[in-house]
Every structure is written in C-alpha cells, then in structure tokens.
C-alpha cells in the first residue's frame, strides 16, 4: 500500500516538475499554457489519489469521507482547469497576441 502511495506521489511530483520546467522553457505565451494548464492537472490527479489512498490507512467512516472529499476536489479541478486555460487563451487572442511559429526568436 505504502509503495503504491509513494509511486503515485512521485509520479505526481514528476508531472508537476514537468509543468514548471515547461513554463520556463517554452517559447511563448500560448505554448507555455500547454504545460501550465495540463501537466498540473495530471500531477494533481496522481498526487491527490495517492493522498486519498494514504488517508484510508486506518479505515473508518471519517477517513472514507475525507477521501471522498479529496476525490471531489479532483473532479472539480478537472472541470475548472480546462475552462480557466481556455479563458486565458481567449484573453490572449482578444488582446491580439500572435502565436509563436517555428523559426522565430523566443519571446
């Protein structure tokens, strides 16, 4: 059980790291949103499932409810994250920012 929890947490951390590095490395506003909006979502999913499992170590009604709440957080993040990412992209398009294309200098 502990091994599974550790694996999930480390996988989550790996994707979070990927998201952070991606924000720094990618060339422009739009491409930076790719790791920012979504590697975080998967990282959060893995990390929170790990936490929910760890929380069930001492099985009782209370811990079960806490785990259910953690899963609810995941569900709401999955609804909210793409919507927020879309809103940010939309803001960029409305402001007239042209996307970076191959061959340009990074911004």
């Amino acid at each position, binding site marked *: 059980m502990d091994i599974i929890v550790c694996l999930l947490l480390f996988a989550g951390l790996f*994707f979070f790291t990927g998201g952070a590095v991606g924000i720094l490395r990618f060339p*422009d506003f739009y491409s930076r949103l790719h790791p920012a909006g979504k590697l975080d*979502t998967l990282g959060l999913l893995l990390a929170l499932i790990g936490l929910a499992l760890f929380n069930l170590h001492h099985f009782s009604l209370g811990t079960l409810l806490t785990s259910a*709440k953690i899963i609810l957080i995941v569900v709401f993040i999955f609804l909210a994250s793409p919507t927020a*990412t*879309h809103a940010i992209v939309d803001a960029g398009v409305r402001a007239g920012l042209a996307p970076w294309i*191959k061959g340009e200098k990074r911004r």
Partner: protein
Amino acid sequence: MIMWKKESHLLDKKEQENLRTGDLGNSNKDRPAIENPQSRRLFFYPFFLTFIIMCGTWVVLSGKFDPFHLSLGLISCGIVAYLSSDLLFSSPKIKGLLRQWARFVRYVPWLMVEIIKANLHVTYLVFHPRMMELIDPRIVKFRSKLQSDLALVTFANSITLTPGTITVDVSIDGDFKVHAIDKASGDPLPGAMEANIAKAFGEV
C-alpha cells in the same frame, strides 16, 4: 359537443379574465401542468435525480449524521434541486437520462487514457534538450459535426484537457480553433475524440 363548446367557451372567458387582471403569466404556467401530465413528469425526474445527487454531496461534505444536520441538508437540497433541476439533466425521459449518463460514464475512462498518453508526450517535449526544434505551434481550424451545446462544451474541454492542444475558440455552430503544440498533437483532430463524444451524447 355542446358541452365541450361550453367548456372551451368558459376557458376562454377565464383566460380573458386573466388577461384583464394581468394574470397572464400565472395562467400560462399553470395550464400545461393541468392539461398535460407529461410536463409534470418532465419536471419530476430531473428534480428527483438532482435531489439525490445533492444529498450525496451534502452527506460527503458535512460528514455529520445527526437529525439536525440531515434535515438542514434535505431542505437546502430540495431548494437547490427545485431551482436548478433543468440544468443538470436536459432529457425529460428517465430511460433517456440513465442511458445518457451511462454513455457518458463509459466515455470518461477513454478520456483518462488519452490524457495520460498525451501528458507523457508533452512531458517528453518539455524535458527534451532540443525542444525548440521539436515543437511547431500551429492553429488548427475545423468544423465539428456535434449538435448540442453540451456536446460541444465537452468536446472543447476534452481538447483542452488532452495536452498539446488548447481550444482557442468555439462558435455556436461548431467552428473550432485549436492551438496545437506540434504536428503530432494537432493532426488527429477532430477524429476519434469527436466520434467518441458523438457516441457519448447519442449523436451518431
């Protein structure tokens, strides 16, 4: 025949009365419920299902099982379900509702697999030393065949959730503009995902 005429005449008179007193809204709201039992059922099932889901959420979030908290939950769930029963379930028939949700639940695991595959792809791009040569951002435009608003929103959110692609713009007619990070991410659109969503919403 005469009776019917009389009755319809009476109804007309009542309507006229309502018109005169400015009670038009009320008569319009009441009439379908009286004349047509279908419309009451149309309201009841979505209400009941919303109510059950609300109660489940309440119990999970409150975690208290004494009569006071449970009755508070029942009251507030009733109010919320009454006000918003038409938001969650659009189809009026109970069988249609269950089938619709069963199809949607079947769609979720497929989406999860796609998300994980695509996440690995973007992570590979992020950590690749020659990342700047691999990525090739582009705007992909296409027209979706999906009809309902809910299907379009689900499609747009699914595109954004699978990494490498972000929905930039959706029009009400289904015109999509998608920002893709490289050729491999943008090419499969709309493709399998649209077909799966069409299946999930019964628009095959």
